[in-house]
């Protein structure tokens, strides 16, 4: 098993959100909804979790008469994501080593 895996990021939708946000400056709620393939309610819930962990910033504004939610990854979020990816890499390295030893 992996050690020190961030429980905030170890969730399918939250990891998907962070993986999308890591490559852009900011993204609208609609963009995240379209690409994570989850429901509006669930996406809102997961975004709130990430915001509470200070991994993302959420800005609410209006586009015409409609509310507009824009998300941006924070430095803390970038660090957490990098650390999560490193842990995953370590896991696969270990897995590969164990497999080679068995052979």
């Amino acid at each position, binding site marked *: 098993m992996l050690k020190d895996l961030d429980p905030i990021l170890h969730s*399918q939708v*939250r990891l998907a959100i962070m*993986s999308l946000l890591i490559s*852009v*400056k900011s993204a*609208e709620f609609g963009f995240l909804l379209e690409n994570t*393939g989850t429901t509006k309610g*669930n996406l809102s819930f997961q975004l709130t979790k990430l915001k509470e962990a200070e991994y993302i910033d959420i800005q609410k504004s209006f586009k015409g008469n409609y509310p507009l939610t824009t998300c941006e990854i924070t430095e803390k979020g970038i660090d957490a994501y990098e650390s999560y990816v490193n842990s*995953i890499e370590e896991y696969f390295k270990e897995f590969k080593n164990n497999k080679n030893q068995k052979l």
Partner: protein
Amino acid sequence: METNQPNSDPFDERQSLQVIREMIQVSQKKLKNDGILFILWGWVMFYSYISSYVFKKTVTTFQVQKIFGYIGNVIGLLAIVFTIYYILKERRKVQTYIGISLRYIWFSLICCLSITSMIIHNVIHVANLELQHPIFMMFIAFAVVVTGGIIRYKPVIFGGIAFALLAFASSWFKLEEQLLLEAAAWLIAFIVPGHILFYKRNS
């Protein structure tokens, strides 16, 4: 992708890797340059230089030249309006660092060309288009190469290099031939890579 309910679901390392891979692929696909602005400005400038060349080489009435001049102005204006609309539309959904960098480069280029034009006029006190064309082409070539580097797309980089070579070559010719060379430069550096980008993005 399956929805993730508020309470965390079983999610192993392989699935983590799969999600990261999927999202990187989504980002790469969605945020890839679609070449629309390359195609648009490539054709607008190509039309502009080719029509100028044809009018300089052939004998046409003033009325015909005026009509084609108006058409060119309307096309240019529509291209500007579409570019602004396109940038704002793209920016609304998602803002990328690549998009921001490209906006800075091309906006700076427009400023640079305007100021250079004024400098040339101030120094030699006359609008010398034969001198201005190769210099402007060189600035554009620089912006094209940098753009190609940022979007990591070799046809655009090579197009920029070809633009620079044609800029140098055009300094040996008179204005009429310079127009033809510049049209060729826009074709090589904008229209061809733009269509390849568009085709690749949509295939």
